[in-house]
């Protein structure tokens, strides 16, 4: 009996409140609409989404009484699904998605430049060790090294601050570095990240 009823009658019944009519309409046209969408998007999940959105639109339009194409139900639904397919491609063009199924992996060119937790700990450790080694230097060498490396002063500024010549400051810096290397080598201290 249901199969005999025309789409237009079912639509009209549905608008009047017969919820079963919608079930019949969906059952009758689901394959054509679903296949049509799939032929465009070639993805089952996206097809499912667009199929659902198509009928949500159909339901809302019918319930609001905005449907005025009696007798042309299927072409109307097909047009809605076609428009939604176009929307889908437009949206994807605006926001292209990268999947990692192909040869190109986006993560091979994007990387997280931040240190990870382990590397951060190691870096802090190394910096602490260096500070402790610097503390062991003779005070004149230590003073020049701190000003140069930590305060970023030029040797001219260091010479002015400490009241020694630039050459002396340079010499103290050189000895500071030699002494640090000696201690590091002697105790096999590893200062790498």
């Amino acid at each position, binding site marked *: 009996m249901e199969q005999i009823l025309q789409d237009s009658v079912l639509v009209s019944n549905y608008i009047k409140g017969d919820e079963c009519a919608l079930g019949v309409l*969906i059952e009758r046209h*689901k394959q054509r609409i*679903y296949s049509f969408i799939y032929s465009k998007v070639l993805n089952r999940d996206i097809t499912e989404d667009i199929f659902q959105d198509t*009928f*949500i639109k159909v*339901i809302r339009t019918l319930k609001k009484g905005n449907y005025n194409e009696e007798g042309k139900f299927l072409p109307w639904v097909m047009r809605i699904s076609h428009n939604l397919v176009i929307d889908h491609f437009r949206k994807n063009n605006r926001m292209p998605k990268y999947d990692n199924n192909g040869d190109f992996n986006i993560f091979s060119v994007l990387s997280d430049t931040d240190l990870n937790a382990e590397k951060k700990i190691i870096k802090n450790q190394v910096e602490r060790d260096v500070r402790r080694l610097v503390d062991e230097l003779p005070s004149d060498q230590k003073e020049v090294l701190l000003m140069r490396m930590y305060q970023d002063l030029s040797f001219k500024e260091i010479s002015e601050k400490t009241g020694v010549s630039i050459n002396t400051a340079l010499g103290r810096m050189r000895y500071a570095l030699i002494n640090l290397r000696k201690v590091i080598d002697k105790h096999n201290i590893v200062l790498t990240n």
Partner: protein
Amino acid sequence: MAKNYTKSSSEMKKMLPKKETISFLLNYSKALSVINYKRMKFETLLN
């Protein structure tokens, strides 16, 4: 003579929406009601 048989594509047979999708649509339809007030239309979803 070559015998050419065409196999009905199993993929085409399966070209149907999931039962859950249809069930969702039917439930959505039952839950949706449109209230007309003067010239305005209000949609309400009753669960």
